[in-house]
């Protein structure tokens, strides 16, 4: 992962590879857990959304594992938007990400949902 606070990701790290990049915009509890508003993720060939969430979970917080859960899930994103289009969860978890993709993980409104709710 390449971590950036704002839009300076192109200077964040010289990877020396031809890997693409996916920019991830975080909100609410997901932003709090990551400690950042935006991340840039190396886009290895064939990287899926599910794998990206795993990477975020490994790097930041295990809550990201469930970011793409169907309703309801702890710390899930209440909407996952890729390049301006809302994805269907969990059906789109196996969708492959491409260089230059913009991903918005919209946090729950109103406190979210945790295990004690169900």
């Amino acid at each position, binding site marked *: 992962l390449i971590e950036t606070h704002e839009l300076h990701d192109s200077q964040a790290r010289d990877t020396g590879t031809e890997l693409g990049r996916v920019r991830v915009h975080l*909100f609410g509890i997901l932003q709090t857990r990551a400690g950042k508003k935006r991340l840039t993720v190396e886009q290895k060939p064939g990287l899926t959304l599910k794998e990206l969430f795993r990477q975020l979970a490994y790097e930041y917080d295990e809550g990201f594992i469930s970011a793409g859960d*169907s309703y309801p899930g702890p710390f899930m994103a209440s909407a996952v938007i890729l390049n301006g289009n809302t994805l269907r969860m969990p059906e789109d978890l196996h969708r492959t990400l491409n260089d230059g993709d913009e991903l918005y993980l919209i946090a729950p409104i109103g406190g979210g949902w945790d295990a004690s709710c*169900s």
Partner: protein
Amino acid sequence: MNGNWNKILFANLSTGEVTVEEPGDKLYRDFLGGYGLGAQIIYSRQRPGVDPLGPDNVLGFTTGLLVGAPVVGATRFTVCGKSPLTNTWGDANSGGYFATALRRAGFDAVFFSGVADEPVYLYVNDGEAVLREAGALWGKDTFETEATLKAQLGEDAQVACIGPAGENVSRIAAIIHDRGRAAARSGLGAVMGSKRLKAVVTSGALPLPLADEARAEELRTAILRRLREDESVAAFRKYGTVSHVASSTFSGDCPVKNWDGVGLVDFPQAELISDDNVIKYEFKKYACYRCPIACGGIYKVEEGPYAVEATQKAEYETCGMFGSNLLNDDVESIIKANEICNRYGLDTISTAATVALAFECYERGLLTEDDTAGLGLTWGNSEAIVHLTEMIARREGIGDLLAEGSMVAAQELGVDPDVAVHAGGQELPAHDPRYAPTFAVNYVVEPTPGRHTQIGLAHMELGSAIRGMDLPEIDKYQIEGKGELNARLLDFTHAAYSMGLCLFVYPRIDVQMWSEIVEAVSGWDYSLDEMLETGARINALRQAFNIREGLDVSSVYISPRATGHPPDDRGPLKGISIDVDLQRRELYEARGWDTQTGKPSRSTLLNLGLKDVADDIHGMDG
């Protein structure tokens, strides 16, 4: 009687008479207080068809069973009556300190009828209530009014008042408490204005009798411990509702460009009016009475054209409606517009929505600079937004028409009806049903239309829930089969609000605790099932109010922009349209209401203990 004073004030403004009634335990147990109690009293004392701005409209200020008791989040007062904005049942609630003060003054609620010859205010203090002359206050804004009354009556006096917008009976006028806490919706500030009732002021130090005070304190302590451990509470304390202005704009939850834009395309700079960029103007935290969350704040803009000395926070709704929905990225102008609404006593949602209507009319050539005192109503023009808000507040120029709200203004301006984005006459808040589909049906089926706080299942669609309630997984875009779940969640909401609870607090507390809390406060054995039944009773009664008015409750209008008819061809909400008819039929069915007309069946009303209401509205069947 524990948990209530069993004392309700009735002030006849035409005669100046103030009386106290003791309605007895059943009314309190059946309705829990709040707008439930308000609906029962107004339904039983008011004939149908009254002019909402006439002497016969009864206006109530209610508290709730848990207000004044040591219960976290029980801080709300609800104002209720027939709405001049929608001609339906109307209610609006606010936090702060007023509700607690009214209970400490020894009363559970106060109702006003008639019209005063001259401006008056009601002063309630330690078991006494008196109408006082308010001529010197008439014309003052809400900040001046509150300061004047506090100077005369003491800093402990809590004030709910109208400003010039209520005095000039703007149908989008709010009732303001504590420099910007607002009972804003339903246009009830105009009802106060029509009655020449400038303010209700209350103070007192009477301890509410409780069944088991020690147990109530124990439960409060347990809840405080639980809230301290809740990660979301810390974030909510820091940001409050402005945490999600940007994310809601990007997701499609928040409307953009009068509900016709796409946030990521038309307003990608939404972060400028969200979270950290808003709270940097906060110089003091604000908590409602004994609230540990303290999501509010007092705001200041030091200098410049939008300088503001001190006002309550511009919440999510205000930022969304004065910001994203107008493509306005100047956060200081939003704080200023919020302050104008607070001072003059306007609902920020309805006002900003009506400003957006005017902007689109300008874009379409239906308004020109000749109509707008030279203002160029171009999207994102923050100066025009602030000036037009002032014109509405003062009924100056085109503001005189816009002060009637967007539905009336659209009719007068001859614009396509869908440009005025409302439900049943009330401007829609900043939650798009295409993002959380249950808002569509709740905006039109709930007896007070266009209200996001009648939230029900939409709460889950936004990603949250009521803690401890047994709830299934849902797919928010699977519309069919949700009526029963929505009804259950709405019923709990009605019970919670009627007890005086805050939407931002009660969902965080395990739902099973409320029975224990109610028992500690009142001594009643009150199960969760009974609470749900009470919620259903409250809603059926409000629905009956509308039916008795002769309204066609099953065909309440909602702007097709909000339901995706036609669907968007771009953005996160692309292709989504909501089948409101299906939602409505299912919700009616779940409630035991006629699936075509929305009338609660006789058996449903009888099961809810509303025999008089059943006789009333089914007697009309002939």
